[in-house]
């Protein structure tokens, strides 16, 4: 259980890998995670009750109750701060926990050879493989950069370079009271022929947020690696084939990110503000993936008076003013 330096055949001699060659294999792991077989995915599933990931709230200020009088404008009730909200529970975390199963060290010679001491070569153990390649590769995946096969949030609905959109529908929409559309953005008491409103909630879409997946090859291209030596049941020294070594790395990586304690790759939304929510099951520092999702409302109200005929005086407070942030949600990636 330690970091090893696997050996390889350089054409004329058996050599220990350099640090750069080992780093290339870790980067190869990142590349492999970008393939379709990765076990940890985020999907778009509107109304799925949020499997494995927290929900978000879009709140909006709504108009106060309409006041009606027969001789003069009555004093209306205050607006409802955050009176309406929409729950966005559209991101589902798919984690194939327990599958794949932990790769076996068949015949205790499944993994590469390393030089144990002078004139002695020994097969790496599975824990050696984790310590040498997989753990560091997972740390790369959760470092917050655009790593192959990981997910991020963007306000863009198309054309995000090196990414594939998960679904054309937004995972969150920030809406506010349509002050400009309803009362022209008035900030002082005014008389307008707009009452009664059809609904106290007059939402206007401000910003959509979309879920994207980073394409395979984004981080390091297609890393070429030095294939190590292993011993087989005939006691021969043989070089892994590219496909066989990729499969070996994939099995270890996929098992770890799905099921191995402290190396399970996880996503969740962290929130600051009114709907505060913290991530507590992490063992690495959660890193932001993409644009922050901002739930905004308006910061003021305005009284609108509307007289319809000699005996119909209507008055109502409506939201207005500048945007204010209620809650900021950020998609985080981490291991747990």
């Amino acid at each position, binding site marked *: 259980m330690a970091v090893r330096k696997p050996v390889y055949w350089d054409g004329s001699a058996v050599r220990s890998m350099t640090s750069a060659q080992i780093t290339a294999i870790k980067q190869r792991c990142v590349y492999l995670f970008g393939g379709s077989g990765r076990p940890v995915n985020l999907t778009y599933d509107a109304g799925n009750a949020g499997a494995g990931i927290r929900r978000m709230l879009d709140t909006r200020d709504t108009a106060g109750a309409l006041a009606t009088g027969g001789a003069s404008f009555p004093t209306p009730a205050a607006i409802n701060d955050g009176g309406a909200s929409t729950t966005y529970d559209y991101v589902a975390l798919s984690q194939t926990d327990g599958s794949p199963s932990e790769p076996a060290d068949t*015949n*205790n010679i*499944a993994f590469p050879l390393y030089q144990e001491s002078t004139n002695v070569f*020994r097969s790496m*153990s599975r824990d*050696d493989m984790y310590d040498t390649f997989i753990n560091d590769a997972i740390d790369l995946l959760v470092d917050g950069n655009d790593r192959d096969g990981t997910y991020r949030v963007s306000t863009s609905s198309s054309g995000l370079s090196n990414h594939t959109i998960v679904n054309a529908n937004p995972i969150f929409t920030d809406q506010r009271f349509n002050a400009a559309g309803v009362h022209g953005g008035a900030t002082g008491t005014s008389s307008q022929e707009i009452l009664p409103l059809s609904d106290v909630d007059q939402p206007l879409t401000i910003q959509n947020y979309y879920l994207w997946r980073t394409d395979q090859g984004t981080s390091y291209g297609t890393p070429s690696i030095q294939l190590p030596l292993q*011993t087989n049941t005939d*006691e021969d020294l043989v070089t892994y084939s590219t496909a066989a070594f990729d499969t070996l790395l994939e099995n270890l990586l996929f098992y770890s990110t799905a099921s191995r304690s402290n190396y399970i790759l996880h996503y969740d939304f962290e929130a600051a503000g009114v709907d505060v929510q913290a991530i507590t099951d992490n063992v690495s520092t959660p890193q932001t993936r993409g644009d922050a999702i901002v739930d905004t409302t308006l910061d003021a109200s305005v009284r609108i008076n509307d007289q319809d005929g000699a005996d119909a005086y209507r008055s109502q407070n409506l939201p207005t003013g500048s945007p204010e942030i209620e809650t900021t949600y950020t998609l985080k990636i981490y291991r747990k």
Partner: protein
Amino acid sequence: MAVTVINLSDPISTLVTKSNTIASDLGDKATLGTTTTSSLVAAINEINTKVVAIDTGAEIAAQVETFFNSSGNVLDVHGFHADSANIDSASITHLAVSGNFIADSALFDSATITNLASTNISVDSADFAKIRLDSVIFQHAKPLSIKDSTGTVVLAGYLLSTSNTDGTL
């Protein structure tokens, strides 16, 4: 020594003396070493019979070969020089060959060979101080072992090397 001759003029005393001389020269047949002692002729014939059986080189060689082919008969010589020899088996304490030693097959208990040229050697056991392969002289063996991930040895052996220094070929 002159031949004893009895003359007609010899007196009786001389005849006696010469007869005794002749008898003495012929010897006592009772002391013949031959098997047959009835008469000198029979003894001589007996010897003749034996000599005739080995009076050619082939007959002598056959007798020698028959003798040394018998168990227990040993040729013990101080020196042996031969242009060529076909020896079925031999125990040689020290065999020095200055020219070429050519053998279809040979079994040596021990040997010191300064230069050995061969197209095929089958050696049951050997002790080499140096081995030259492809003009490279190897005179050291370095251990090599391969273990599985639990530390159990799956292969242990040696590599030939020109040096006994670790890290040197």
